[in-house]
């Protein structure tokens, strides 16, 4: 490496290091979605933050080199001259692929561990699949709540398996609870997406799709449909989802059960195939 090359390399390295550190410090202060309303959402936010921090040096490096080259290596003078032919540099190529591979595989590992942990950390060994009528919330049994999400054109409704299969227009969940969410549909494909809770699952007719969420903080969340499902798909959302305290939830669910007393609902089931499938024809 001769003199001028060394100077350029040194300049680029120093600028890259300084700008990367500044960028990482900024990245540490950025709050990334979906937040911390549930453990799963918190995990997703931390993973996004980690990815942001790791990508800062790469982004800074690429941008810096492009700008540096554009200004410092700009061709001077009037006559246009062909640039030097480019040849491969084996060491740089190997280093580039190796560093990229390490970053990608590391992030893949972190992501897989996060997904795995989301289900494993929640102990549902005592969870009931059938209606039992008992109220585990507030008890010492791990606060399991089983909720069924029913997608239909164009609204999500929710049934609480542990409370006689009571059905609600809005999703209300107790805080500090392990929630088991069973997602299904009565007509076509929908997708249940509770953004602030960091969970999303397809709602397919005849399928019982299970996801888990552990609520951490009270607050409201939005439920959206994330699968194009017809003319009102864009309106298939509800901003009234709530995570409430255990006491508030007990009061609310008692009221819901009272309201539901006169309703003629089918027995709680993992999926529903109600008739009619087709009218008239």
């Amino acid at each position, binding site marked *: 490496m001769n003199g001028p090359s060394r100077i350029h390399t040194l300049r680029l390295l120093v600028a890259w290091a300084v700008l990367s550190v500044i960028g990482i410090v900024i990245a540490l202060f950025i709050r990334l979605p979906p937040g911390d309303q549930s453990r799963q959402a918190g995990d997703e936010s931390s993973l996004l933050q980690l990815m942001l921090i790791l990508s800062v040096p790469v982004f800074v490096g690429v941008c810096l080199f492009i700008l540096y080259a554009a200004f410092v290596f700009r061709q001077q003078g009037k006559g246009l001259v062909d640039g*030097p032919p480019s040849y491969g540099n084996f060491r740089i190529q190997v280093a580039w692929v190796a560093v990229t591979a390490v970053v990608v595989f590391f992030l893949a590992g972190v992501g897989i561990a996060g997904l795995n942990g989301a289900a494993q950390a929640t102990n549902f060994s005592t969870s009931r699949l059938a209606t039992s009528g008992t109220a585990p919330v507030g008890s010492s049994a791990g606060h399991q709540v089983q909720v069924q999400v029913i997608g239909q054109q*164009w609204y999500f409704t929710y049934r609480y398996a542990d409370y006689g299969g009571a059905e609600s227009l809005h999703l209300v969940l107790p805080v500090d609870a392990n929630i088991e969410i069973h997602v299904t549909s009565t007509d076509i494909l929908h997708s249940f997406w509770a953004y602030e809770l960091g969970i999303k699952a397809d709602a397919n007719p005849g399928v019982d799709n299970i996801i888990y969420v552990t609520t951490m903080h009270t607050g409201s969340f939005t439920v959206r449909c994330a699968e194009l499902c017809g003319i009102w798909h864009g309106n298939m959302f509800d901003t009234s989802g709530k995570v409430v305290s255990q006491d508030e939830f007990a009061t609310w669910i008692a009221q819901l059960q009272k309201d539901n007393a006169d309703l003629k609902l089918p027995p709680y089931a993992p999926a529903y195939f109600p008739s009619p499938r087709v009218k008239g024809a």
Partner: protein
Amino acid sequence: MRKYLFIYKPTPGCYVRNKVEAQRSPNVGRRLVVVLLGAAALIALVAGFITGFALKFPPTLTASPARLAQGNQPAQNAFIHLETVASVDTAITFPRPDDPHPSWVSYLPTTTFKVPANSVVTMQIDQEDTPSGLRNPFWANAQGIIGGKFHMTYFDDKGNPQAGDFSALDDPANAAHTFGIPDLGVFVPLEGLNAAAPPGSMNVITFSFRTGKPGIYRWQCFVPCGAGTIYGNGGPMQTLGYMSGFLVVQ
């Protein structure tokens, strides 16, 4: 210059640009014109179709103004009179002779309603369709309406006219349609006409609900009533102006 780029091996040399001369066909101009005209015609057709579709919008029905208390009905700020039919060409109250889909099930006369904000809206729906049944029996319950009950005149199994106040349908399978405004939490099931009812009769359902702040709220029917379409959710269920629309609260 190139000595600065340490990743390049400095080698002398220059590039020779290959010259490619294509033989032009004598017809190329004419062909180009045909292709361009064809493409333009296609684009115009697609644009026309999309524009026509986007501009097709049902007319707006403004709620009738305030009415004093009548009989056991409370005084109301706004009144909307609707009709639900098994097919548009059999309408009794609000015929729509030039409808492009005369055989479709529909709300009539239109599906966009303008109502005042923060007021009580009373709706009367003349329901002439036969039952289709609900896929989710949850919707057989009236929700979000004043008093929790709707008033209905209907026909029993012997074809005799009956009347009463109900908070739900006896059997979710008897629902013909529902009127639901999700963002207002208003859901009202509409009982299907009994097979024993005399021809040309209708169930008349009346209910009231409160509007809140101004805005555009969508409403829809939750009965899969698009006859002959897959899962009953096609046709009139997927087209503005039949089984869904907007409540414009001003």
